[in-house]
């Protein structure tokens, strides 16, 4: 549904600041109906990337295809037309204070030349969809942040888009409103069969709603994939960002051996514990880590400390790995290896 091919965006030098390569050769594909997330540190080009999708920013090179249309080859007026089927939601809502909630939802319809009665009907329907039917006549100043974002989502959906772009849609909201807005996004995605591309710097948001994610750093894609796949990888920058690897520095000098376990649905930690405690008779404690439910599956990183008779450990670990369990010992003297990934 969204297809970026080798897209670059260079902002020309201005004044004393040199030119900025905001997006540096990104290729990205989001399938129809997919909920994709883009994460990355501040300044990594996330906002620029999402603005390239509806050509609010023209790429310096590369092509942008949405719903089978190569936008980068279309003349301006056809790009404008195409934008009507790509909804966009912003961090700071960007509602017009001069209009009511309903007036804001009608705005895109007005631009598309939809008649007054039909606009009214659509606005009512959409505000009901986002749970704000009663606030149709309220001005943005009278609404909470979460409510404003709901109105903005209703507005983005007015033109019956197939694609919804969200740039930090929850970053200005508190926890409760964030949860509400994310639930709404999931619901409209399912009900309307939308393809969603969501930009965020909050990993919790990705874990809550996304099917797939892309990690951007300095304008480049560093890692990407479906969450259910990425999280089962033992060494993945994206997985490290989503499920921070446990720190080990604090555990030096406690004796025993430290084991790093990647927990997945198919390789739950119970298998590991069964082997270590049941078969080898070791004492095992959890030194750090977490296990969470993401995209309907259980994933996590655990740091286990095993103490006791370690003579049969190596053989047992080989056996586990052969069975597909992601477990590896952390070399005692190598703090560097142990903390790799912890700085993300």
């Amino acid at each position, binding site marked *: 549904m969204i297809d970026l091919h080798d897209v670059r965006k260079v902002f020309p030098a201005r004044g004393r600041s040199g030119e900025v390569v905001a997006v540096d050769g990104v290729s990205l594909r989001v399938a129809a109906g997919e909920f994709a997330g883009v994460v990355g540190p501040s300044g990594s080009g996330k906002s620029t990337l999402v603005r390239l999708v*509806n050509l*609010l920013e023209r790429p310096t090179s590369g092509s942008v295809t949405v719903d089978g249309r190569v936008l980068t080859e279309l003349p301006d007026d056809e790009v*404008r*037309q*195409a*934008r*009507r089927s*790509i909804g*966009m939601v*912003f961090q*700071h809502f*960007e*509602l*017009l*204070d*001069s*209009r009511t909630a309903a007036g804001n939802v009608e*705005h*895109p319809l*007005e*631009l*598309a030349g939809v008649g007054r009665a039909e606009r009214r009907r659509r606005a009512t329907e959409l505000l009901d969809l986002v749970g704000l039917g009663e606030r149709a006549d309220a*001005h*943005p*100043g*009278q609404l909470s942040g979460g409510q404003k974002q709901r109105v903005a989502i209703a*507005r983005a959906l007015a*033109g019956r888009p197939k694609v919804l*772009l969200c740039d930090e849609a929850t970053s200005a909201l508190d926890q409760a409103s964030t949860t509400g807005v994310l639930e709404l996004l999931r619901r409209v995605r399912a009900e309307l069969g939308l393809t969603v591309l969501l930009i965020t710097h909050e990993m919790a948001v990705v874990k809550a709603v996304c099917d797939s994610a892309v990690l951007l750093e300095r304008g480049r894609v560093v890692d990407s994939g479906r969450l259910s796949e990425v999280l089962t990888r033992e060494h993945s920058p994206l997985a490290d960002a989503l499920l921070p690897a446990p720190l080990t520095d604090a555990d030096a000098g406690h004796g025993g051996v430290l084991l790093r376990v990647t927990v997945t649905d198919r390789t739950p930690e119970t298998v590991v514990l069964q082997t270590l405690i049941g078969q080898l008779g070791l004492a095992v404690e959890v030194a750090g880590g977490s296990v969470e439910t993401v995209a309907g599956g259980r994933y996590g990183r655990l740091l286990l400390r095993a103490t006791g008779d370690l003579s049969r450990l190596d053989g047992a670990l080989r056996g586990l790995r052969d069975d597909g369990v992601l477990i590896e010992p952390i070399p005692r003297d190598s703090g560097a290896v142990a903390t790799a990934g912890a700085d993300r």
Partner: protein
Amino acid sequence: MSDWARVWPQLLEATWETLYMVGVSALLTVLLGIPLGILLTVTAPGALAPRPLLYRLLGLVVNLGRSLPFIILLVLVAPVTRGVVGTTIGSTAAIVPLTIGAVPFLARLVETSLREVASGKVEAALSMGARRRDVVRTVLLPEARPSLIAGTTVTVVALISYSAMAGAVGGGGLGDFAIRFGYQQFRTDITLLTVVLLLLIVQVLQWAGDHWARRLAHA
């Protein structure tokens, strides 16, 4: 006090002349100044329709108009006035320099108002497929309306004070009246009365402008 009977009709006429001069030039100023302000806003570098050369040229003209003392402008535009109205004397003739003086003033205020509209709102409209003129019509102007009204009020108040000056050099109106009766005939009471009248007009205008702007501000 018997001469009040002689003064009253003239005062009434002077008031009418002032309202006429200010009213017509305010209308013309709004009709010319707002489009000029819009043009300045959209042609600025990095704006909706950047035209750096046109922007700088317009900026120069506007600055020139604003930096000239009104009394000098009065003299400078006399030939234009004669061309348009046929004479340089009278209230109708005064409308030309008044308008020329106020348009650049309002245009700058309009530019400032429009520029204060958050760029994200413009961006949101563009993402909905708005054309540039749609952005001006449905985003910039409505969002800036309270501030545009405030700017227009300030301009009209400035026009009243300009009109007193224009009056003194043959435009009629309250300024002319104050000088002819109050100053030249040493009638301080008449001067004071004119000042009170001008103040009243300004107050009513300011109040109406503020009230209207406040009613439209929902933020």
